């Protein structure tokens, strides 16, 4: 039944990217990124699952990936705080001074 999770991963991936595209809240954008990471992790494991156990290689990758995602989330959230200091909001529309 790995295909179920493969499909779920794909859906999750799309949901994540959809979130980043449509949501103006910076925090939600970070959540979208996390959802995407979860999707990839899920996909890895689902593809590594032979019905009984998953390949340890995939497991180790997912472990690292989770850690990295957490680090990125932390960094992103600290940046959000900084952004909040500068703009007074967590709206992505306020982060539009760099353009053209």
């Amino acid at each position: 039944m790995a295909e179920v999770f493969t499909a779920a991963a794909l859906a999750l991936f799309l949901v994540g990217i959809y979130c980043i595209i449509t949501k103006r809240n910076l925090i939600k954008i970070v959540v979208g990124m996390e959802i995407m990471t979860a999707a990839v992790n899920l996909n890895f494991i689902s593809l590594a699952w032979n019905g009984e156990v998953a390949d340890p290689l995939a497991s180790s990758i997912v472990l690292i990936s989770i850690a990295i995602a957490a680090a990125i989330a932390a960094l992103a959230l600290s940046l959000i705080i900084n952004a909040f200091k500068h703009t007074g909001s967590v709206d992505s529309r306020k982060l539009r001074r760099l353009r053209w």
Partner: protein
Amino acid sequence: MVDVTYSALLPAVLCWTIPVAGAFATLGLSKVGARARDYGAVLTSILAAISAASLLPLLPSEGLPIDIRFDWVTLPFSEMPLSIGAGFLIDPLSIILCNVVSVIGSLIMVYSLKYMEGDPSLTRYWFFMNLFLGNMLLLVLSDNFVQMLFGWEGVGVCSYALIGFWHSDSKEDWLKCWVGEGKESCPPSHSGMKAFIMTRFGDVLMLMGVFLLIVALGTANFLELQNGAASVAGPYKFLLLPAALLIFGGAVGKSAQLPLMEWLPDAMTGPTPVSALIHAATMVKAGVYLVARVFPIFYIALVADPALITFFQVVAWVGALTAFVAATQATVSTELKKVLAYSTVSQIGYMMLGMGVAGTVAEFYIGYAGGVMHLMSHAVFKAALFLSAGAVIHAVNSRFMYHMGGLGKKMPLTYVAMLASSLSLMGMPVFFSGFWSKDMVLESALLAGQYPLLMLGLLTVSVTCFYTVRMLGLVFHGKPSEHQAAEAAAGHLHLGDPSPKMTVPYQILAAATVAMGVTGYFQREWLVKLFAGYYSGIFALGHIEISEGLMPQLFTAALSTLFLLAGAVPAYLIYFRGRTPPQSGLLSSIRNLLFRRYYLNALYYALFVNPTMWLAERLYSAMEVGFFDRLNAGIAAAARSASSKLRKSHAGDLNYNVLAFAVGLALLMLIILVVVIW
């Protein structure tokens, strides 16, 4: 390359290098002093004349032609191995021409001593006069087309500088140095340019012809061209006729024949000695010389290509028409020098006529010798006319004949000289050179059976006589003009014969024309023998029996005398006796037509000059500014607007950035799906 005689080399080289060196020496001498410069310049021309004269002993010799050649440009790798030598061709034609040029030239230089006295730019004057002589002599002595072109263009440049000598175009002495009236009025700097550019038109045609000839025959040397022309064959044969006609274009330009005659009347803006030198004795004769020079080439080539007869016919017709047309214009001219200018054009037409008809018959020598003889006699009497006219203009301070009148008594020496040379111009039998030479031309037309040409020539005789008598009457007879009175009142008038430095040269020339007239018959026989003998060797015809009856001579003499009287008598009645000329609308419109030069000048301006100038303006404003500048600006603006539109897509919105990512990803998938997998 015939027998190389180095004894002829020295005079041939000196003949043209002395004036050229003299020209540059003048620049140095001018630092020494005015007299050194002036007399040095005159001396140079006299030395050139002496060198030229030292070639005369070669004339009857059997050794001619002498071609002395040096390597100049060799192109061994060229597809047509071409070797252009530098060298001198000494044959009867070149000997006669270089003597005419240098002797008359040196007389004119002597005349200039006084005439140009006190001009601030004398250094320039002497420089270009000597350079002119040198180039003219180089022209006639060259043994090939390319070297000849050096002299050819050299005289063009010098004439440009000399015609426009008084280039400040000062309105103060416009009575002396401008030319024309009303719409035709033209300052020196303009006419110099006009002369150069108009003759350049002829020159480029000639250049084209020379190129074709070189391609066809593989050489530029006159003698080699003569040798090759008879045997030209195959694909190159068709080139000869165009080449001949194009080369004649050069002669048309230089000799001011129809339709490129319009520069010469305007060229009278130069100082009078310049007019005498350029427009009587030397430069305008270059065209005749050229025709005489290429004559044997195409005459021989008639064997290969009979179509070449067209060339000779064209020459004859152009000459005859020019003679007539120019002569008619002289009848209405108000300016003394312009009358002489038209007359020059007209007389050169005779020479062309002689050369042209000569080529159509086996007895080429009569027309050919006639052309050369007329060239000689015309050089002498026209130089005399110009120089004495200069004296008149100098005295009256005006170029207009209606400012003159009644000068005969006040300037007797000048009057006599002018009368003698005028009679020669008219062709008055028997003691004037013009009679013999002109009759020879007419006779050749008669012998060739070219009756329309003969008729034109005879008509021209009448017209010539009419304007010559008119000129004499207006200048030397009748009452002094109001202008003279005004000038006298202002204290500018110095009526009377000028100093000997000026009178002697034209007296000599006038005497020469009479002398040539007196010996005319023998001169004629001598020339005919000379050329017939010389060219029979070239054409490999063997000995030519000169089968010239007396009857045609007498017949033409009678005819021309008849026409002479037909022209001279009415003019005499009107301008000497004061009879009122018949008045009619037709006559006055003809007069206007003639006065406006058959509208040829206006036509040229309307056809060439003004459209070119208009085009220059329009091309610049429409193409350069209107199109290319806009195009460049447009390209720049397009790039700028494309980038600024594209720039708008970078709104800096994070969501859009990720959207762009998603779209890119989708696009990638699409490409893979559509292009690669399917």
